[in-house]
């Protein structure tokens, strides 16, 4: 996993999977950089071939952690079709912008 801070944009990429194995690690790593108060958080899911409910839980936790910061945009980039379906099934698109670039 790679976390890059580009000004106001926090960019997270290179996530092969988001599961019970690594979701806590993911959540803690991202939370650790939130004090930098980014205005956009982009999570690149193009490399992510598998996500389970723990992985989704980490994304919901991220939403909750940023909910009190006004105007933070949460963006999920290029999820694979199966992952996209999962996001829609759990109504993630109401919390995150899902963008195909």
């Amino acid at each position, binding site marked *: 996993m790679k976390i890059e801070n580009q000004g106001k944009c926090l960019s997270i990429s290179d996530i092969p*999977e988001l*599961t*019970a*194995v690594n979701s806590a690690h993911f959540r803690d790593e991202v939370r650790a950089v939130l004090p930098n108060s980014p205005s956009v958080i982009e999570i690149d899911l193009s490399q992510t071939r*598998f996500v*389970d*409910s*723990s992985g*989704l*839980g*980490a994304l*919901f*936790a991220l*939403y*909750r952690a940023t909910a009190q910061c006004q105007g933070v945009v949460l963006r999920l980039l290029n999820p694979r*079709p*199966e*992952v996209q379906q*999962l996001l829609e*099934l*759990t*109504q993630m698109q*109401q*919390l995150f912008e899902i963008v195909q670039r």
Partner: protein
Amino acid sequence: MAAAQAQPAQPAALRVPFSPDPQSVRTAAEAIRKFLGEQGVPEKELFSFELCVAEAGNNAIAYAEGPARALKPVAEALFTPDQIELRMTDHTAGFVLPERIVLPPPQKERGRGLYLIKSVMDEVRYVRGAAENTLIMRKRRRAIQATAKEREPGMPGALSLEESQRQLSESKSARASMAGELLFRSDTLSAIFRCCAELGRSDVLADDFGKRLLVDLFHLTTADWCVLRLLSVDGKQLVVAAASESELVAEALNLPLPGEAPRGIEAAVAASQTAARFDLREGRDRSEPLRAVGPGATGLVCPLVFGGVLVGTIAVGRRGGDFPLGKLQEEVVRIFAEFLAIQNVNLRHHRDEVRRHVFARELEIAQEIQHLLLPRTLPQLERFGLAGGWQSAREVGGDFYDALAVDVQSLVLMVADVMGKGVPAALFAATMRGMLRGLAARTNDPAKILSGLNRLLYAELSAVNMFITAQVVHVDLQTRQITAASAGHCPLLYVPAGLHAVQALPTKGIPIGVLPDTVYSPATAVLGEPATLLLYTDGLTDTRNPAGRLFGQRHLTKWLGENAFAGHTAGGLRDQLARELNRFRGAAEMTDDQAFLVLTEARMNPDGAREFDAQRDPALLDSASVRIIG
């Protein structure tokens, strides 16, 4: 091996016990994904299955407690072409799978696993056991169609031994698949019958509806335990139909006889048809069955009554007396009791409906089987006509006939009677028809054909104590010679050369399936002009009239003598015979199947024109067997 071809998918299963840690769950989920991929499940479907195994596996390890935390959960995948079933066996205390699962609000980090499983699978069940529980997840899928290879048209002319062996084995495998289908249908039928039998029992509520309802009730009342008992078929006992705790699955309670004191609170409630509250801390009755819950249990027992008739009882309560059920909760129990009683009556109506459907479907299947038994077409001949008649006493019988053109001038005819009825008889009949075709390609000798059939069928028939009687006839249309052999079958009737009368051709032999190596001896005769030949099963001669008198072979011979020279076509003679049989039987019930095959010959007019035109004669034009309904 030849080049790989598309094979129809075969059932397969994988079992993966795994260590109780998240990484092992991942490994198990990936193993199952890989396995399903190898079975030909498309890539885009694999994600869902991997997800379900991951979710179920994570729950299995998250909720294990105490020593159970060291036990390995087991992930399983069962693949069949039309369904994928995933199973996760855990060692947790278990949970109650809600009927509906709602998506948790975004603020909640956890609790989406079951929602996802329920969303992507067609059926989810959770079976709780004493030491382990299994989550069963099923997804139906469309079977992968095997591409049917177009058969090449057969080459005319003599067949080599190799070729006929190949044909025999092809025919065997075709019959085997047909037999498989018949078996499958019979299994399906018996499954439906079993289901109906279940519905017929008064504890039908236990299996499905009652349990579901009980779970809802359990949640609504926040009770610690509940037990549903239903009245047994004989109306004498209360049998546990569903219970929240395994210790409550106790033996049946006898309803008290008149003047007898009831044993236990539930029996008392059933006898009085009045609900009762109870508190075990007050009672001293050691034999009270509800003590299984605990010494201080409290709660409510309601009778299930509909239209004044007792259906069962329902008991709901807490383990201790500190938090007894409130008024509202008791009201809920009463409402449920009423509903359960009504539902039981509804289910009885439903059961009648299901029976009607099953009966209709049984008729359909029987008709399909019948079509498999008789040849679709009979050989079309230049100067001769062939027609078959068939009537079944029941929906599926074991009588059948078949006719094969060996070459342009000879035929092999067969009439057989498989002892017994129903699907097993039909299976043997279908198998034997296939074998006849294979054997007739190798030899024209009816005796050798019968020996061959006996050799091939002996083991299977003797294993189920069945046998087959059969008559096989080779007809040389050029020389008019007939060669017949019989395996315990009634004699054929014919008009011999130079005679203006009908005779029986005496043939003797042991039925097929009685001895392992039976040798049959052929009998020969020459057909007169016009040729008339009748092969039949004993269902014809055993036809009884309302007075109980048999139709008999003498009557049949006499009838044929009167009609053989009347210039009937084969189809005409067949129809006449069927009419005669039905006329004789009158209002009497048909007790046996009937099958027969007639061969006739066109008479020549002095100018050489045929008396009937093959192109217009229905028996020749479309010699498919006609089913004659009595």
